[in-house]
């Protein structure tokens, strides 16, 4: 922690006013004017002392969420604790000093009051502009309370990191169904007891079983009530393959490397949008990234699976060396494969039944615009 004093613009003006009054008091000595000068001078000293005192035992901890989303507000929380037993701290603002890469410093958080031995939580909002790791460097707690003339700040050398997920866009209705259908083998069932429609087996009746599940013919033949057990329906399965085998410089794109990098980001966003759309329709999803180290988990449904896949997309380092020979592992017979390419489709990836998309189709397929407006 490093402590510093800052003279603010109102403080400079005030000092000039004090000097003017002091000059007049020295030339036209009236004791009341001398006292006014003395009181104004004391105000400067007090401003420094009273702003520094409450910060002596002030502690601030930054709470950064594990993940954020591009273009969505990222709420940073600061636990501001006043360790002093007697002194409150007022008007403390907490300001980030270094946020990077690709991150604009958020507006400061503001604490109106934190009492003795008390902890309050202040919030500020950052707006991540790019996918990837957002690193937060040192931050500063400062106050100019009570008079705003001289401020005191305490710097906390703390590091924190947040993974910014790509912003998945809402796809046009029916797009995913067109690409994935009901899965390559259609709807399937799992060998587990569930509320599905396929027959799994028979067992003895137990109190509480529905009267509708009784197998009447078998029961009349056997003399004891038997009920039918049915299997669980398996949701359709979608595998999204992101083709990043070609390095950025090798892409056939007009506009140079920056445009190529934009297209790669669009491809990532398109993959994220497909995964989110599939997850929202209850499908099982899996993600494979070609050319870069990526996830190797099986297909699953649910929010946690989507989070894992988005985290993997967020963590992709496009500056890392690409593996041009990478191929798609077997995704399973009933998995509908959608391959997302950057600049042009390579039909050799994903098998004959797979659907192929390029990053340029993102805008045509999505409902909302880049800034989130529909």
């Amino acid at each position, binding site marked *: 922690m490093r402590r510093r004093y800052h003279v603010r613009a109102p403080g400079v003006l005030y000092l000039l006013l004090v000097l003017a009054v002091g000059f007049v008091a020295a030339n036209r000595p009236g004791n009341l004017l001398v006292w006014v000068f003395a009181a104004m001078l004391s105000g400067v000293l007090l401003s420094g002392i009273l702003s520094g005192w409450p910060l002596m035992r002030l502690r601030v901890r930054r709470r950064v969420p594990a993940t954020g989303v591009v273009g969505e507000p990222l709420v940073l929380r600061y636990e501001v604790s006043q360790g002093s037993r007697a002194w*409150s701290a007022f*008007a403390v603002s907490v300001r980030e000093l270094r946020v990077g890469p690709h991150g604009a410093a958020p507006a400061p958080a503001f604490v109106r009051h934190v009492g003795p031995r008390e902890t309050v939580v202040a919030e500020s909002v950052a707006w991540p502009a790019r996918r990837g790791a957002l690193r937060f460097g040192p931050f500063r707690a400062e106050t100019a309370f009570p008079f705003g003339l001289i401020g005191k700040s305490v710097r906390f050398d703390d590091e924190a990191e947040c993974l910014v997920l790509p912003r998945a866009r809402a796809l046009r209705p029916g797009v995913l169904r067109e690409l994935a259908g009901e899965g390559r083998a259609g709807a399937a069932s799992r060998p587990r007891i569930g509320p599905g429609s396929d027959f799994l087996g028979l067992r003895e009746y137990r109190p509480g079983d529905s009267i509708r599940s009784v197998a009447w013919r078998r029961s009349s033949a056997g003399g004891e009530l038997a009920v039918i057990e049915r299997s669980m329906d398996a949701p359709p399965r979608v595998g999204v393959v992101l083709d990043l085998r070609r390095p950025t410089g090798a892409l056939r794109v007009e506009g140079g490397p920056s445009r190529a990098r934009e297209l790669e980001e669009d491809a990532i966003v398109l993959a994220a949008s497909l995964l989110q759309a599939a997850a929202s329709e209850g499908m099982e999803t899996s993600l494979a990234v070609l050319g870069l180290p990526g996830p190797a988990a099986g297909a699953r449904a649910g929010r946690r699976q989507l989070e894992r896949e988005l985290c993997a997309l967020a963590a992709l380092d496009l500056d890392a060396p690409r593996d041009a020979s990478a191929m798609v592992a077997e995704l399973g017979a009933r998995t509908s494969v959608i391959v997302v390419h950057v600049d042009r489709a390579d039909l050799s990836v994903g098998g004959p039944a797979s659907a192929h998309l390029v990053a340029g189709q993102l805008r045509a397929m999505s409902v909302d615009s880049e800034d989130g407006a529909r």
Partner: protein
Amino acid sequence: MNVGTWLSRSVLAACMLALAAFSASQADAWVLVVAGSVTVAGFTLSGGPRGLVLPAWAVRLSVLGGIAWGALEVFARPGAEDAARAVGLVVAAGICVKAWDRRVPSDWRQVLVLAMVLCASAALHSSDFLVGALVIAFAAALVPAAMLLQLHAGGEAVAAARRAAVPAGRRAPALESPLGAASARGMRRVATVGAVSGIGMSLVVFAVFPRELAGDGGGRGRVSGFRPTIDLWSGGRISQSSRVAMTVRLLDPQDRPGELTMPLRMRGAVLDSYDPAEARWSGSGRFSRIRRFRTEPSGGFEPLSQRAREERSNVWTQEVQMRSLASDRVFSAWMPLAIACDETRIFGLDRRTAELVDIGGGRLGRPGSYRIRMQAFPSAAIVQAVLPSSTPFPAAGDVGFPVPRVGEIAARVLAEQGPENLPTDAEIAEDPSLRRTRARRIAAFFESWLSGGGFRYSTDLSAYRRGEGDDPIVQFLDVHRAGHCELFASAMAALCLASGVEARVVTGFIATEYDGVSDRYVFRESGAHAWVEVRVDEFQWMTFDPSPLAELLAIQQANRTWLDGFRWILDPVEFTWNSRFAGFDARAQAELADRAGEATRAAQAWLAARARDASAQAERFFMQGAVGVAWVASVAGTLAAVGGILAVLAARGRRAASALGARRMGPVARIALARDAGFYLEALLVLDRAGVAKPAWRTPLAHAHELRLRSLDASEAFEAIVRRLYAIRFGGVRPTRGARREADDLVAELRRALADGYTR
């Protein structure tokens, strides 16, 4: 706590106090009534639900108009006091306008700055008790106002920064700025400490601020009417206040109180030197002829000379009780012979003019009461004994006045209307005693000429304009023929001097008001007066008063109000204020420094004596000399080290108990827990530094699960740490040395995993 509402109220209170202070300094209640009403209405209506505010152009136009008017006023009346008044009026108008302006933090700040400037302007003009009390109240009100403004401005600035950071088309989430518990109490505490510390520090700065001797009977800048100098160009300092300055009991030679048939004049200062460049009367070489006399509380009268001690005939006594006036001047009706005071003080006597001053003698403040024995018509022997530095009676050619035009006027008036058969120079050369006759007749003529109807008494000197080579006495005699007592006295003294008659101006008080119940003359501030003493003999000065007394007394009576009957309540406070604060000068500074030095030396001596006593006692107790001292030092050092170690262990135990929810454990168990589960505390610290601190509300295992989003390795390492902690905390397991080492390895692994960033 609604910051906006309290801010508005506190700023309004500060503005009203500033307006009241300025109004009191100008002795003009209308400033407060008009400006105060406009300000209150502005704050009420513009801050109300409808928010009636002036448009920005109207505010700017009003401010520019005010500044232009102030500039014109300063050019028209370039005097410092008139300029300060003009600036004050412009600032007061600015406050009125800003009260109707919008409400953003910069506006609040501007209003407070204007109020501060207004208070400084009031303090520049007057050091009266009422002004001082209002200025101090303003300073006290400014503290919470500035604090609330900081709270308000900080919140507004952050809100504006948040709005600016929001990308286009997005809406910022609503965020609250937290306000902890008992914020109002905390603010009161800070405000109290700030105000008390500020006043304390300001008094220190006030005490050490370089200043000169005040000696003006009431402190610099204070308008009490009486002054030991006369500046004829600054006519605005004539007081019309009916505040009681002092009361005087007059005892005749038989010690019977009584009232005279004529007004009683109390001499304060004698002014025998005129500076035509500044139009200022002052005393020449006043402190070079001074003789000191010390009074004691029970010491009786201190005679001013041995001859005065023996004087018994026609000796009167005056008992002076100071009320609101605190002055270093000792007022005496006639020639003083002896002085007594109920305090140990030193008084100084000017051995040429018979002026008495208080020199202090180790006391702060001014004398509150004193008694003087005096004679109205002292003999030449007495005057010679008391005033040995009196100059010889000068010849007519040795006396003059430095403004030639006054001489021309005096010659013309004497030629046209003067007394007939005045002794000529040739006759005086033959008979020097005729000089006295000539002096008496000329002085009497000029007195009657000035008070005879051709001149009018007025305190309004706005017609007097200071120009190159102008003199106010000439303007008074030649042009305006109206003015107050200082101009009348100055004119008569100037005419006499120009006519070869030695004369001097005397300032002091005049009173005709006599309280028959207490047998005391009542001297009011409006009774501050100037008159003339003319030398008519070797050791005799006669008093002449050219001011039209009837008009002067009528003006004094007209200023009385029913409130004057209650002024006595404030008299002690006002006297203390004037004596200790307004009259604080270089002499008081020196006395204060002496006292502080004495107190410091006494404290040092006391501490050294205590240290020697303690050392001697220890020596007597151990009887072993240096060995005993070394033994005591080693025992004390050991105890301090043990205490320090225990304190560190206790703090660590408290931290562990707090983190592990074991606050009910005893201190020994806490220390043991801190030792066994120290690895968990270390792990929490690692998480905290990595920015993924465990919230208090989340269980350790749940947090380990949350860490999966950040790093799978870190999650597994922390989960292993948590399981070890549970075995110790709830399973009663005492970890072996090897188990502790393994736990430390897990913490290192956690640190490594978190340092690597996002890993799968």
